[in-house]
């Protein structure tokens, strides 16, 4: 309990630190710092529908982040969430294209299946390379992201290209309304319940099955679990596949939900933010939910800032970067204060 308190306090304190740093930079560059602060607070929390916006960006992030946490726990630094997210969306888009016309209750399940399988496959090959040959997954998954990005460009300006009009945009045809699982605001009962189901099932998997504990142990000391007779590759492969499938699921949600079409280069920072969330949450599922909501709010604030505070896009990048730089920081000072208070209280 106190620990989670401590880590939340930490995160908040250092977010403030980061924002102060930004304020300094911006006032040097000649932008109003207080305007920035008010715009962030307003955009993330206060304006009407703020929660809605936070959910729109936060829910898919949460799903991907849970996957990231699963593979990180098992000791595999699969940073390929972005690629798996894209490939999942691509596969779902293809299925939607092929089955177009069929009733929704047929198309939707197929799309989700395709999305998750696609994501899993995009995690499978780095997984195999890692587990069978020891090829470092950090690079292979990084390369996987680049490749998936190119693949997305290819399908959106090739096979899936929207031919309407002069056919100039690199994006797929808009999905029929029947196949959308949410309007463009991106929050719907279905999406929320998917997130809840994923959260619950993964929480159970991690905390209530021997897989969960084994992967936790293996992530910290593979040798020890080998001496216990565990088959590392099983745990490892499962972790890769699950994380890929969840990223793919998130991709499918973005496609069938808010976006309603596949556009080249959409949500380019999704995977990175998901990794951020998983690590900030210290790889805990529940923590990821909180962090995802927070970063969702931040994402919507980032879209709100340039309009209200007139900050250039580079400024937004700086804000996100500064937060990334500091958010996992911890200082003995804060910990002591928090511990002290928790002692005092109980």
């Amino acid at each position, binding site marked *: 309990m106190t620990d989670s308190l401590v880590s939340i306090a930490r995160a908040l304190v250092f977010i403030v630190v980061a924002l102060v740093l930004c304020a300094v930079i911006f006032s040097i560059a000649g932008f109003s710092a207080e305007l920035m602060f008010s715009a962030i607070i307003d955009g993330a929390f206060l304006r009407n529908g703020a929660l809605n916006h936070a959910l729109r960006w936060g829910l898919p992030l949460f799903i991907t982040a849970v996957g990231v946490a699963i593979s990180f726990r098992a000791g595999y630094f699969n940073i390929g969430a972005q690629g798996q997210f894209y490939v999942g969306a691509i596969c779902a888009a293809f299925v939607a294209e092929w089955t177009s016309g069929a009733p929704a209750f047929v198309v939707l399940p197929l799309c989700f299946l395709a999305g998750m399988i696609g994501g899993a496959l995009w995690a499978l090959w780095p997984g195999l390379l890692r587990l069978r040959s020891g090829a470092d997954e950090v690079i292979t998954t990084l390369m996987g992201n680049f490749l998936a990005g190119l693949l997305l460009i290819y399908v959106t300006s090739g096979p899936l290209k929207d031919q309407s009009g002069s056919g100039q945009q690199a994006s797929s045809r808009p999905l029929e309304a029947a196949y959308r699982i949410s309007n463009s605001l991106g929050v719907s009962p279905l999406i929320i319940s998917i997130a809840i189901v994923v959260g619950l099932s993964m929480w159970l998997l991690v905390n209530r099955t021997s897989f969960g504990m084994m992967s936790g142990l293996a992530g910290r000391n593979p040798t020890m679990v080998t*001496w216990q*007779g*565990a088959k590392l590759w099983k745990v490892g492969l499962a972790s890769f596949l699950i994380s890929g499938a969840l990223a793919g699921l998130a991709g499918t949600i973005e496609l069938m939900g808010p976006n309603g079409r596949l556009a080249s280069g959409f949500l380019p920072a999704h995977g990175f933010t998901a990794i951020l969330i998983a690590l900030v949450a210290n790889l805990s599922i529940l923590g990821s939910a909180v962090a995802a909501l927070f970063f969702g709010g931040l994402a919507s604030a980032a879209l709100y800032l340039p309009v209200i505070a007139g900050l250039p896009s580079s400024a937004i990048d700086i804000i996100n970067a500064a937060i990334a730089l500091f958010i996992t920081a911890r200082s003995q000072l804060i910990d002591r204060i928090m511990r002290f208070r928790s002692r005092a209280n109980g």
Partner: protein
Amino acid sequence: MSETTAAVLDCHDVTVRFGDVVALSNVSVSFASGAIHAVVGQNGAGKTTFARVIAGLIDPDEGSVRISGRDMPKGSVNDARRAGVELVHQSFALPPSFTVAEAMQFGGSGGKLYTRSQLERRWQAHLDALNINVKAGQRIRDLPVESQQSVEIARALVTDAKLLILDEPTAVLSPEGAEKLFQRIRHLKSAGVTIILILHKIREVLAIADTVSVLRGGKLVEGPVACSGIDADKLSELIIGPSARPLDEDDRAALTGSASSLHTHVGVSGKDGAAPPILDMKSVSSAPDGDGPPLTDVSLAIRPGEIVGVAGVEGNGQRTLVRALSALADVESGTIALDGRQVTTLPLQGRRIAGLRVIPFERNVEGLSLTSSLWENWSARKLLQGSLLSWIRPSALRSECKSALDAWDVRYATVAQRAGSLSGGNAQKVILSREMDEDARLIIAAQPTRGLDIGATAFVWNALDQARRRNCGILLISSDLDEIMDICDRVVVMLSGRIAGTFEPPYDIARIGAAMTGVTHDR
């Protein structure tokens, strides 16, 4: 005369806390220079912490340390080393990827820029001078712990140490090794070096030390007193303290060494030759595997209720034997049967389900995940009996773990604490409590008492005995001949991957020793 009486080390009111654990409380002690001082105490008594404070690795929360009359700034390794303090860690203080030569170099002075051959020549000479037989070009990770330790000692002696602290140096050594070490230590003493020895074996204390000091629960309960003025029983009394349950006679005898001359071991009645063996290895040969030679044509049978000891100089295939039995080293020819069932091709998980239990050599790497909680470490075995998706109830596991650890009286705060925060001895007990459960059939115990205090050691021996009474088969690998001769029903000696001899009680230490060193002998 005055030179020897001058105190080389003064600790004043030293207190060290780790969170809520008080590792040392108000320890005030001063050691005369030019002598060998033993520090003894149970696991978790604070010996290592004490050593680390002197070496400047731990900055005490209270108190001060003076070395040869000069106050040491708190927690400064460099100042301590400049004052001539060197600490030999029992383990983990050499980067695994380094070559021996590099490991010597990186802490030392001089040789800012070098070539490999220079470096190796330089340090090979140093190693040879200390007649430590490892190649300066070898990688640390490829060395057995024994050699790693000698390398550590060699590193400590690179600079001219005035005060040399060794943390359980004998724990990893065979009796010969220990004797060699003691000669080296006496030699150093005569060269004017003061030595602080952290030891568990009272016999060793009495054999080598001039004075002994006893730590219990972080407090200095005795000493330094001259060893001439104290006897084994008194010392063991002091170490264990009035609170702990007294040892039964022959264990104490074995531990304190007072009875170490007669190894008249009597097996338990339960064991009968007729019963089918629990372990039946038939002429097993293995592929070369890590360090040490491969197994060649090893045949070994263990009957229910029998403890078979594997003696031998470390690095003669004991590790490969354990790995082969654990299905971690691949067997090229021969068969392994467990409880009459062929398991030659069965993976470890299967063998464990069939009742195999392993207490591996490397406690902190193979035995435990130091950064995981105690209960996770403890539950690992249970979890792997079922499928990966089988359901678990952490709360249940926690309480099971708690009761098990309490039964083995492990000193810990909560089952949620990291295994790494236990002292080595207690860490070992956690492993024992995991591996020596009710439905164990064959227990492979590799160096189970290494680094354990006398109480814990006796405890382990009793546990092994209990298991034997439950008709388990037990394979005990130990570099401690006394231990082996004291509790084993049969002893096999391994020499370069083969079984060089089998001995039944009453044991003849001379013949076993001969077999270990490969001197031919007639049966």
